[in-house]
């Protein structure tokens, strides 16, 4: 730092006192470095251990990651740039899977929030329906896959119905809970000031219920991924699940591992994207909590 000429220093820091500022970024980078390193070393070490032990074991059932990850790229991500590097197979596999999961999850979310807010504002209606809702949530969703296959046959509607039925419960029950516990003073205040019903819903009830709704949405998203996979395994006509089935029948272990890794990446991406959106939408909520605490 002392080697720098004063003039160069001035151009960077302006009128900053005594050269403390230029040093700060260095400290911050170093602090970020230790912060990241203290979190990442274990997962990196486990990755290396996986590679080394798979190499040493040389077991066809457990191919090393150095074989799996390039295969993931070759199978799905080595297409032309015009197709976002997706291969034909990627488009064939991803389109049905993603269409099923998003149609199912978004459909269940909308239905769950609408019905949930309505029920949450009416104690009597909730009491009539409570045992049914508890029972619906308790049915393990894959149980009904054979039923949905009979009703819808093996078609897109079957996959979507399985996902909707399976993931609506966390959204619905959390929304009911969130809408029921809206601060009554807030609601009364809004009423006294003549805020109309729809505006009250939009400005008071939904924001107050939002943290609980988001908790439900998050649970249902990871459940939707599970149901997407299992319905494609059982239905096995399309999607990433079908890739897994084919790999299993053909005894192609590296292809199977590649499918598992792909689904893991999808799960991570969904989770990460969801957390980002949640942080953005609920930023005010965390702020409010911080002020209280």
């Amino acid at each position, binding site marked *: 730092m002392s080697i720098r000429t004063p003039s160069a220093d001035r151009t960077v820091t302006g009128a900053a006192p005594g050269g403390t500022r230029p040093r700060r970024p260095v400290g911050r980078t170093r602090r970020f470095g230790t912060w990241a390193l*203290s*979190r*990442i*070393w*274990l*997962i990196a070490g*486990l990755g290396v251990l996986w590679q080394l032990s798979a190499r040493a074991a040389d077991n066809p*059932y457990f191919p090393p990651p150095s074989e799996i990850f390039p295969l993931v790229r070759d199978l799905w991500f080595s297409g032309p740039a015009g197709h976002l590097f997706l291969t034909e197979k990627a488009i064939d596999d991803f389109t049905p899977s993603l269409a099923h999961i998003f149609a199912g999850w978004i459909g269940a979310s909308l239905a769950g929030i609408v019905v949930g807010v309505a029920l949450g504002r009416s104690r*009597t209606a909730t*009491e*009539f*329906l*409570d*045992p*049914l809702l*508890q*029972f*619906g949530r*308790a*049915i*393990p*969703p*894959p*149980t*009904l*896959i*054979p*039923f949905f*296959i*009979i*009703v819808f046959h093996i078609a897109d509607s079957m996959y979507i119905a399985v996902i909707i039925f399976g993931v609506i419960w966390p959204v619905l029950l959390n929304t009911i809970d969130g809408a029921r516990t809206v601060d009554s003073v807030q609601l009364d205040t809004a009423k006294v000031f003549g805020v109309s019903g729809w505006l009250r819903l939009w400005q008071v009830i939904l924001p107050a219920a939002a943290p609980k709704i988001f908790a439900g949405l998050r649970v249902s998203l*990871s459940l939707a*991924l*599970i149901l*997407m*996979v*299992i319905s494609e*395994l*059982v239905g096995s006509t399309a999607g990433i699940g079908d890739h*897994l*089935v084919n*790999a*299993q029948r053909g*005894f192609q*272990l590296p292809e*199977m*591992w590649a*499918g*598992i890794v792909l*689904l*893991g990446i999808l*799960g*991570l991406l*969904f*989770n990460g994207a969801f957390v980002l959106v949640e942080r953005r939408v609920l930023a005010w909520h965390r702020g409010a909590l911080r002020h209280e605490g």
Partner: protein
Amino acid sequence: MTQARAVRGAIGVAGAIAIIELVSRAGLIDETALPPASTVLTRAVGQLGDADFLKSVGSTLQAWAGGLLLAIAIAVPLGLALGSIRWLGTASRVVVEFLRPIPSVALIPLAIVVFASTTNVKISLIVYAATWPILINTLYALRDVDPLAKDTLRSFGFGRLSVLWRVTVPSAAPFVTTGVRISASIGLVVVISAELFAGGGGLGTYLSETQSGGGRTDLLLAGALWAGLIGLVINTALVWAERKAFRWHAERTEATT
């Protein structure tokens, strides 16, 4: 108050049964796809005398309980060990957050290829799926243990293990049990999925077999009814046990909010 609630709930259930009955009898939905509710209920009662069905349910529950117990036996000590060492706890939370989103059912085909016996397939999948929620709840619970309480005991001369046993374990226990409850329902999902896909006995296999012989939806729905009731009983029992064991915890959190 609670009596009125129970009556309303019963009316709701009766209403739903009546609607399904009417929809089916009126032919709005094909009767082979949606049999009348009365038929399904009769079949459900009949299944209690069906040795085949009872054996299937028994096999599912056995695999579920075994897998869940194994997961608890792995995840709780592992979480306690990793979580009580600060630098290890931070890094292992990252590992868990990384591995948890992998959908457990994606491993079903792999488990089938690796394990010859379907019981091992089921148990290994349940253990895998059920370990994460317990482990992650244990890790985060240990991070949030009141440092003041730990320091107080330490300054009174209590040893490391003693602090772990007197402060850390009791304050983490409610969160760990919540993890167990989440794992219990995920375990049920995974075991039935595995049975549907891999066969080899159990409720999932029973359900998929009902549709192979010309599609007996009445038996299928009756089986699903029992699956729902089993899920309900398990969940209610765990919630009840949690409240009973950690009444002090519930009171404390209610008081602060």
